[in-house]
């Protein structure tokens, strides 16, 4: 159980190394290990298929079979493709000059939206010196408003809340009005968790975004998510086109293949990484770190060198 991709490749190609030459069967054997490791890391089934097809093409085509050190080449191809799929560089989170810049957080139940709202508020205040307000638009989950009020307090930011009597769309509009009046730099809107297949709640989310016209929409995704991640992301992209993702609970030991899948299918980058329950445990996302988690070892370069 839970062997790393690096270890699997080592095993699959270990004996080839002494032999020096690589047959097509060797490549297939290595690819089976790649497939297993990616599925175990929760990379989407279709993404795995395309990935292994690309690696096969590059590995079997031309140079690799004939090269001086073919096992080395196969590993390098896998590492290259994986890094490329995740998008290489760290994304920036640039806010427009508008005042207030409006950010909406959306996602499934329990993914970490309310926590991320407060974390983002703290981040923008502490790192960029911005005056941030939070809007409590989850009127559904019991005590969601109290939760945001408490977390907002810890982040040292204003929280706009009107209890649970109005509708979320009304509260969002009202909060935007106040943020304008009070000349806040940023307004972050916390929304209720919703399933992407729940038409009524997805329509509500759409209504909220139509009401506040956000400059940025972030999808909050749990790093432990399995094969459903792509369905979730594509459904949210239809109703509330998002600019990027917040990947949460990265302090766990999930490999985070869902992130890779969502990036591959929607093209949207992962912008922030949430790595704990405390508000400071939040930072810009580094794609190479997830590549490392999936590979299961120090870094890609070492992997190539070891092969």
């Amino acid at each position, binding site marked *: 159980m839970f062997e790393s991709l690096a270890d699997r490749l080592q095993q699959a190609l270990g004996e080839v190394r002494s032999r020096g030459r690589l047959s097509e069967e060797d490549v297939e054997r290595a690819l089976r290990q790649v497939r297993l490791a990616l599925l175990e890391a929760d990379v989407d089934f279709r993404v795995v298929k395309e990935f292994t097809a690309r690696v096969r093409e590059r590995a079997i085509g031309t140079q690799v079979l004939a090269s001086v050190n073919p096992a080395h080449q196969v590993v390098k191809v896998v590492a290259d493709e994986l890094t490329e799929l995740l998008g290489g560089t760290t994304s920036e989170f640039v806010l427009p000059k508008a005042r207030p810049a409006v950010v909406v957080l959306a996602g*499934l139940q329990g993914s970490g939206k309310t926590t991320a709202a407060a974390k983002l508020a703290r981040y923008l205040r502490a790192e960029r010196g911005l005056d941030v307000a939070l809007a409590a638009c989850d009127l559904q989950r*019991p005590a969601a408003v109290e939760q945001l009020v408490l977390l907002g307090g810890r982040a040292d930011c204003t929280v706009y809340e009107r209890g649970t009597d109005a509708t979320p769309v009304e509260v969002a509009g009202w909060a935007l009005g106040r943020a304008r009046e009070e000349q806040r730099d940023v307004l972050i809107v916390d929304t209720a968790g919703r399933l992407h297949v729940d038409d009524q709640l997805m329509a509500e989310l759409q209504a909220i975004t139509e009401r506040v016209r956000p400059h940025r929409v972030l999808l909050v995704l749990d790093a432990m998510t399995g094969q459903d991640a792509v369905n979730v992301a594509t459904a949210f992209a239809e109703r509330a086109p998002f600019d990027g993702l917040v990947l949460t609970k990265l302090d*766990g030991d999930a490999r985070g293949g869902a992130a890779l899948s969502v990036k591959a299918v929607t093209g949207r980058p992962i912008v922030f990484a949430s790595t704990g329950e405390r508000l400071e445990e939040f930072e810009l996302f580094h794609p190479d770190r997830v590549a490392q988690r999936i590979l299961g070892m120090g870094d890609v370069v070492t992997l190539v060198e070891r092969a």
Partner: protein
Amino acid sequence: RRTREALAGELGASVIGRVDDGVFERIEEALIRADLGVPATARIVGQLEEEVALGRIEGREQLVARLRELIAQAARPDGSEARLDLRARPAVVMVVGVNGTGKTTTIGKLAAALRGDLGLRVLVAAADTYRAAAVEQLAAWAERADTEIVRGQPGQDPGSVAFDALEAAQARGVDVVLIDTAGRLHNRTPLMEELAKVGRVVSGKVAGAPHETLLVIDATTGQNGLRQASAFAQKTPVTGIVLTKLDGSAKGGVVVAIAQELGLPIKLVGVGEGIADLRPFDPEAFAAALVE
């Protein structure tokens, strides 16, 4: 839903009463996409292939029926009891799991069912003293479910909250105590130790308690669910799984792997955010939703 449609469509369209080689690949795909994981999928598909080769299964309908049967069997470990054992007085149920899976909500629903359907006297213990407004959240559920509550203070030792709750339950003649615990990732050793300590406090106070320790797994979870289950089972005597959020499109197939690898029975499923959205686990219905 998508997996179900995809598989039904493909089986219907391309197999047409005949079982060709491609069919196993399509079944494998469907199971992987339902989060069963490679080993559990391989076991089920391997068994099917063997039975087809031996001529025990013929045609699409038999194949689908047998597939469902195998999934249902795998989801229910041999000899496991899916019902909650609440015979003790007070019966103590601890609810544990990683962050955000649905522990507090499940307690609210379960309290309502025990109180409403069975007329039991239920007390909930708000031993999540860590997460912001977790106590208020459980208090709202206690009100909805019309049950008693013992509240922890923010930052209070969760073991002492559990102790207070059990003492109150014994003094008042409560039938069932449901203990809500803070969400924690299974690889955070100090937090897992803290949970084990709550368990020790509980068993020190009421003989034989906790009578049930339910691990809540979110149906959206992928292969990490297996690690969660094995880590929680090591630190607490997990007696069963609650699979939540089955009202989404995720199938929760990782519980099949959990049942197979760890022998943990699935006891309850959550199918929504409402008070009545809790059901006993039905392996046949679960399998049918996976492959229809």
